[in-house]
């Protein structure tokens, strides 16, 4: 029962959704619409599960005084304070009926004052690591690394005013070699070719995996044991 029922659920949901995609009338379409709604709702519960899991892990770390446990207190306090502010719309000018991110609300402050600067700075750190990765790739001196970095440089320079300025001296007959034009050509043709090959490959992989899941051949998502 612990493994068979989930397999039956997966099969029914998968078959109904695939059929509902092609049969746009009658009960299959109704079920397709309903299951789409249910699917969206259940996936939101995954956020709640994520929050619960975060609480569980950090409470365990605090109670067992694990290494760096004071930082877990920071996570717990930040999580609980933001959650209370968000769920009860604390400081929201429109009260419980107001927009969740209404201007002037405390959650808006958390978003603009804490979440935004933290996420933007976290991601901007990558600029430094990317620079070091490029340096290492240059040192590798393989043909593939050279192609990758040459394409990246053309795109980087071609999409900025400095690229246009650098190649503005070129005669009209060689205009296609100007960096902005070269960048546009790379984006439109070789880049599209590579993207398309990847997309077709992924599509075939997704189709095969979806079929394996629906037919119960692929069961890894159920985990091990009973």
């Amino acid at each position, binding site marked *: 029962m612990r493994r068979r029922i*989930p397999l039956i659920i*997966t099969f029914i*949901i*998968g078959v109904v959704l695939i059929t509902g995609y092609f049969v746009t009338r009658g009960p299959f379409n109704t079920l397709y619409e*309903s*299951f789409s*709604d*249910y*699917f*969206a*709702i*259940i996936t*939101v519960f*995954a956020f709640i599960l994520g929050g619960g*899991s*975060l609480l*569980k892990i950090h409470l365990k770390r605090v109670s067992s005084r694990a290494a760096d446990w004071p*930082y877990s207190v920071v*996570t717990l306090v*930040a*999580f609980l304070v*933001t959650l209370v502010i*968000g769920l009860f*719309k604390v400081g929201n000018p429109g009260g*419980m*009926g107001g927009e969740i991110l209404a201007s*002037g609300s405390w*959650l808006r402050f*958390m*978003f603009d*004052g804490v*979440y935004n*600067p*933290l996420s933007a*700075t976290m*991601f*901007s750190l990558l*600029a430094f690591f*990317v620079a070091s990765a490029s340096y290492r790739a240059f040192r590798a001196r393989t043909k593939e690394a050279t*192609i*990758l970095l040459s*394409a*990246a440089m*053309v795109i980087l320079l071609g999409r900025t005013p400095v690229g246009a300025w650098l190649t503005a001296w070129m005669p009209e007959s060689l205009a*296609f070699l100007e960096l902005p034009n070269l960048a546009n050509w*790379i984006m439109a043709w*070789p*880049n599209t*070719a590579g*993207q*398309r*090959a*990847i*997309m077709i490959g*992924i*599509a075939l992989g*997704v189709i095969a995996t*979806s*079929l394996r899941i*629906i037919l119960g051949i692929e069961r890894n998502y159920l985990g091990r044991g009973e």
Partner: protein
Amino acid sequence: MDVTLMLWIDAALTLMILSFLYRDNPFYKFAEHLFVGVSAAYLMAVGFWDHLVPNLLGKLFPALMSGVVPGAVGRSPDYYYIIPAVFGLLLLTRLVDRWAWLSRWALAFIVGGAAGFNLPRFLDSDFIIQVQSTMIPLVVLDASGNLIWGASFSHIVLVLGVICGLVYFFFSVEHKGVLGHVSRAGIWVLMVTFGAAFGYTVMARISLLTGRMEALGAWLGSIF
């Protein structure tokens, strides 16, 4: 909220994260853990108000939710929505070791739903349409029948690029001989694609960094 206070918090958090460039330190760890807590709760709160309240609670308890869900006024309850509520609650049993196996039922709904949605959508948009878009003439002529060299070259690059890229992903045959050469060309095409993506990523990250530097500049400007 006070603008000066916002500037100070913004600057302090930015500097804490940037301090990681020197090495891992308590300030960075503090900001990192703060980020985890705030972002998890933020996503939960937004998910609750934007999805659960209008799509689940508003359908099950329209009278109770009439103050927060505009369309719920005068609507009768839709009891079919007990199904996703039960599955959602089953998902949460994963937090209790003894009952964790029940979460498989909800997970089965999610996995089956994802498989059922993705199969026809990927077949249509990422396979059929992409193959169809690659079926283009290799020789491009203008209205008077003259060859357009540039457009023809671009079309050949596209078609051969897609074929070579696909051959690289074809693992059923060993990449030797002609197939090996074609597969090698496929790698080069993929490298151009990764290079373009790399270039855009670098630009996006530098743009974010510029934004952070501007924020720090605004903070310094408020002091001096």
